[in-house]
């Protein structure tokens, strides 16, 4: 598919000089088991820096787009992104707290992941304890409020942080970046993201039904409440795990499902894989840009915003045509 071609091209793009011939030789070396003892620098760059980064871009893009597609179906609203229940805000808070406490990188990532999950858990708890006839609305409102709380806490930590070393680190983290991704990050994140993806993939038809509305879903024998919780949990796992390693990268989860919907229609069966592929490709493209557009790396969150915001406005201008 086009994605593989894109990945292949991206492998040769970057500051370190790497030609296709070099790469071929390096691959053959590795496959035949003849890797020089500590790995030549080329070997290290290709297999341990570039390829993981490409894989990470695809993983993050795909996961965010999948979560976005699921949420848009769940909330029956095209303006919904994976952040709506506060997972990004929570993960951001966890990471900022980690930086503030001077934890090592692993600690920061873990804290981001856990607080992200915890935030959504809190939102679900709040929604469950409020009785009303609009469960989805309550969920969204709770998500917005808790997300705002997390945002305030982040701001507070920014004020308390040491402006000379912690604050720049916090700023860069919040802008999102794939520059610091290592192979170990991927090996930790892929299983978790997969764990979130599996239920989503298996429940594709039911999510479709859910987008018809609670009453219709109930009539077709689906427990809307339980299904909603499962979908939210799955999407949150995916989002929290990728935000923990890459920082806050916005717009992918919002825009990519729309693009996918324009191509394959709103049927979640086909929407999910389409959104994932588009999301993976998009983020790969943007990350390659981030690496090459200037001599010094540009945080990826900036670029996704620059591209995402105009597209979003365009979508708004089009109205709700194309949805449903």
């Amino acid at each position, binding site marked *: 598919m086009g994605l593989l071609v894109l990945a292949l091209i991206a492998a040769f793009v*970057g*500051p*370190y000089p790497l030609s296709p011939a070099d790469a071929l030789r390096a691959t053959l070396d590795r496959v035949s088991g003849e890797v020089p003892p*500590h790995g030549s*620098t080329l070997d*290290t*760059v290709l297999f*341990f*820096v*570039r390829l993981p*980064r490409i894989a990470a871009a695809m993983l993050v893009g795909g996961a965010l787009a999948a979560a976005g597609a699921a949420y848009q179906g769940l909330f029956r609203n095209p303006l919904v992104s994976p952040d709506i229940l506060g997972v990004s805000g929570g993960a951001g808070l966890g990471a900022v707290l980690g*930086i503030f406490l*001077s*934890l*090592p*990188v692993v600690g*920061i990532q873990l804290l981001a992941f856990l607080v992200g999950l915890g935030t959504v858990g809190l939102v679900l708890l709040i929604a469950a304890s409020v009785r009303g006839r609009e469960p989805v609305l309550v969920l969204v409102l709770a998500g917005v409020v808790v997300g705002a709380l997390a945002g305030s806490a982040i701001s507070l930590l920014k*004020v308390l942080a*040491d*402006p*000379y*070393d912690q*604050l*720049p*680190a916090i700023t*860069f983290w919040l802008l999102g*970046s794939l*520059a*610091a991704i*290592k192979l170990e990050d991927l090996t930790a994140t892929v299983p978790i993201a997969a764990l979130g993806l599996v239920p989503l993939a298996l429940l594709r038809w039911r999510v479709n039904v859910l987008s018809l509305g609670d009453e219709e879903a109930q009539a077709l024998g689906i427990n809307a409440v339980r299904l909603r919780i499962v979908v939210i949990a799955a999407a949150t796992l995916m989002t929290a795990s990728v935000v923990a390693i890459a920082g806050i990268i916005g717009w992918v989860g919002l825009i990519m499902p729309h693009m996918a919907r324009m191509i394959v229609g709103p049927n979640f069966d086909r929407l999910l894989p389409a959104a994932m592929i588009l999301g993976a490709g998009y983020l790969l493209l943007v990350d390659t840009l981030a*690496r090459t557009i*200037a*001599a*010094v*790396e540009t*945080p990826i969150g900036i670029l996704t915003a620059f591209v995402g915001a105009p597209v979003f406005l365009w979508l708004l201008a089009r109205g709700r045509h194309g949805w449903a």
Partner: protein
Amino acid sequence: MRRLACGLAVFLALVQPAGAERMVTDSASREVAVPDRIERVFAAGPPAAVLLYVLAPDRMIGWPRPPRPEELPYIAPEYRELPEVGWLTGRGDTVNLEVLLQARPDLIFDFGSVRDTYVSLAERVQAQTGIPYILIDGTFANTPDAVRLLGEVLGVEERAERIAAYVEATFAEIDATLAKVPQDRRPRVYLARGPSGLETGLQGSINTEIIERVGGVNVAADPSGARRGIAQVPIEQIVLWNPDTVITWEPDFYEAVWKDFYWQGVDAVAAGRVYLSPTAPFGWIDRPPSLNRLIGLEWLAGLFYPDQVNQDLREVTRSFYDLFYHVDLTDAELDRLLQWAKGRAP
């Protein structure tokens, strides 16, 4: 609130005996009237606080941010418990003007940028509170003059002259050393910041000023020259730059880098030339970017040019801390301070 502050200022001005005043000219060429005898000084931020602590610690009202527990032993006992008073300008503006007035400073000063923004801030605070506010140019090369200026304002000319002379002598020594070292023999240095060491200061930034002043070639350069501050770089780029020396002040990063697979390809790590800068009571390279960087200058000169500079780091540190920071360091404290300042065997 504003009225209250103004009213309070007027009241204070009326109530205080009309003390003798004199005019001083600050680094931004502003003429400011200051009292003859200045007892209480508010330092507007950490760089100013360092300068004040070095020159005239008895005039300090408090610290902009409280010293951390590990920094306390390196501050003279009388000043360890000073209250936290917040910052007035630059990054991290946290002071409340009423709190400022309550502290009744005779003078506010800032040590750093003298650009228009800061001038207008100084004018505003001065007009609002009636407290004289002077700006001192914090450019590193200007340090001796800055010290003399503050010394003149506070009436501690003798001490100021001593400090300024030390700074000038250090600069002269460094320049003499550099004259003997050709450009291609100078070390290529990378400053590793942040928990993973992937944040750095670009060439020409204030964060790497010391490294460049001592002749180190900062590998992190933006060829187009457009960006000068802090930037994030991927490990790939660092491997490409291949610095022969890495400096950091993050203990976690320092521990991890030796075992980190990705950093093994970097010359500095292979040769054991990764150095952990001390940070107590103030950073030696940065944090804050003030007078405290002078000892960093001496340390790096010894590190980069061991052939030309014959230096006993312990003695240099001990006398510096005595002269500047008013502390007499014990051997144990010195050991802890300089623990990884000389690197580790590969």
